[in-house]
């Protein structure tokens, strides 16, 4: 008798742990695939059979079309475009990931603290962050890099710091909505310390927001880096980055289609992929929240 009831209940309640991964759609997986390939290629750029991206071979043909020896052709100085675009991806991703880590690290932690502690700390931090948001970031970044010098590390720090206010605002809002929920009071009423409540009860509820905006921020910073490189404020030639390759292609006469298309499309696909993946994840998490 008992077992009948149990199995009836077991049927009525879906088994835990079976979180469906379906429903993201093929385009999502294509985007994830592109980002995966990009990550692999940049990590293993050193061991891939690629030509030196900066070496101008004596016998190389400038502006060559794709061929077996140069899969994506060569640029106006006869350098391998595939090799240059992959090394450019390295620069983009390094700066993107580094700056995002700074942004999420500072903005995320401060946002959670401000929303959980409230009071004066929240007041001052919010004031500071809104002042930061009011700043025209790109102009400030250009000015700072011009004075400070545009080494890769400087870009990471500056872009990272300028992404803090937005992340702070988003994480603070997400934390605020979680911290005022009854389950936080319930956890406190069971004797959990603030640190524990933050780590075990609030963070898991804020994590989806943080993950989603990590991805959006990464996209935003890669785009900004591209723009800065285009105007010559990122790594300098002969080192390659997507932005400076696009800049170079625009000054070459006659137009080298491959030199222009390859870095542009790489940048374009990467940004589309990041934004789409972020958006799908956001929708997914919103859906899970709505069900609870």
């Amino acid at each position: 008798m008992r077992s009948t009831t149990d199995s009836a209940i077991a049927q009525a309640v879906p088994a835990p742990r079976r979180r469906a991964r379906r429903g993201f759609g093929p385009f999502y997986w294509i985007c994830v695939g592109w980002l995966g390939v990009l990550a692999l290629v940049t990590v293993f750029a050193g061991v891939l059979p690629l030509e030196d991206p900066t070496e101008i071979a004596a016998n190389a043909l400038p502006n060559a079309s794709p061929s077996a020896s140069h899969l994506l052709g060569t640029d106006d100085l006869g350098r391998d475009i595939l090799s240059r675009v992959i090394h450019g991806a390295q620069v983009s991703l390094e700066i993107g990931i580094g700056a995002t880590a700074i942004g999420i690290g500072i903005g995320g932690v401060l946002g959670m603290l401000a929303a959980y502690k409230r009071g004066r700390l929240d007041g001052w931090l919010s004031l500071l962050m809104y002042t930061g948001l009011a700043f025209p970031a790109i102009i400030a970044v250009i000015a700072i890099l011009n004075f400070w010098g545009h080494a890769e590390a400087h870009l990471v720090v500056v872009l990272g710091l300028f992404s803090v206010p937005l992340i702070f605002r988003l994480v603070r809002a997400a934390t605020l909505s979680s911290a005022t929920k009854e389950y936080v009071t319930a956890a406190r009423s069971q004797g959990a310390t603030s640190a524990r409540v933050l780590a075990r009860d609030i963070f898991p509820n804020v994590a989806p927001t943080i993950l989603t905006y990590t991805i959006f921020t990464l996209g935003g910073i890669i785009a900004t880096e591209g723009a800065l490189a285009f105007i010559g404020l990122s790594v300098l030639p002969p080192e390659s980055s997507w932005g400076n390759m696009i800049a170079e292609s625009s000054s070459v006469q006659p137009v080298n289609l491959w030199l222009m298309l390859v870095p542009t499309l790489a940048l374009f696909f990467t940004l589309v992929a990041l934004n789409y993946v972020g958006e799908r994840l956001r929708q997914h998490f919103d859906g899970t929240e709505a069900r609870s």
Partner: protein
Amino acid sequence: MIDAPTPSGDAGGPSTLLDVSQLRTTFETARGPLTAVDSVSFSLDRGETLGVVGESGSGKTVLVRSIMGLLPGRGTTTTGSVALDGIELVGAPSEALRALWAERISMVFQDPMSSLNPVQRVGNQITETLRVHQRLGRRDARAKAVQLLAQVGIPSPAERARAYPVQLSGGMRQRVMIAIALACGPELLLADEPTTGLDVTIQAQILDLLEDLQSTRGMAMILVTHDLGVVATRTDRIMVMYAGRVVELAPTRRLFSDMRMPYTEALLNSTPRLDQASHTRLRAIEGRPPDLVDPDPGCAFAPRCDYATDQCRTQVPPLTADEHDAAHLFACWHPRGTPVRAVAPSRSGDG
């Protein structure tokens, strides 16, 4: 102060577990301070069940949260005294409170839908408490959690422990909440409308469960509700609250047989009863609860009271004991069942 008979018949000695005196909680609002709980005093014996009754906004929830010390700090002031077994809780540092919470005093929340963390498996939410307070290892805590889930009547508890709250029904979630609250074997359980939002049949189950667990554990309980019917058969004493004050406090039987405060009477008249003919019109209490920011000078219930006099409108009646029955307290200038009845308009006596 109030010497209620000990229901469990303890072997003499001081059996008072909780002693609340002159508890007052105010919130800072844009319009000025709002007094949500005012001059509340009562005591509770070990193993006793006290029902707290009143309509929405009468200060029931704020009262239990003030007792717990759970109210948000900013803009909230709690004064008076709450002594749990001689330990003062009002103004106690948060570390001291944390040590008492769950171990000695615990709370079941109003809404089981929102008081469980949606992203944590329910088993983890129980082991969390056990690991913090009882320093149990992962495995022991898990075994204890499953055992607790079984105790609160959850079928196949080992499997349910791995479920997320979304996967459980409201009644199940409230059982989980009860399991969490009872995990460390508290001496006092504060149940704040534990059955709101549940089906009537489930309500009865949850209340029966609480009653069972309470008697097997010898735990004292404060059961908050807006439904007199809920507390009628499950409590030793009932405290009726209105506008943040205690208006009547009596042993359950005596409250129902001999209610003195017109508000209690009105509350009972607004509850459907089986012994009335069907389709008997319920007497809703006219008017609305008073403004707590800018209260009128007299008895808070006076504007809605059938028996109010000028004295009621100018002077707050003190909470006093019945001259024949020290355990029965009420705050009324013209209590029911006394010769003041001449003042009262005659009422149509149906039912």
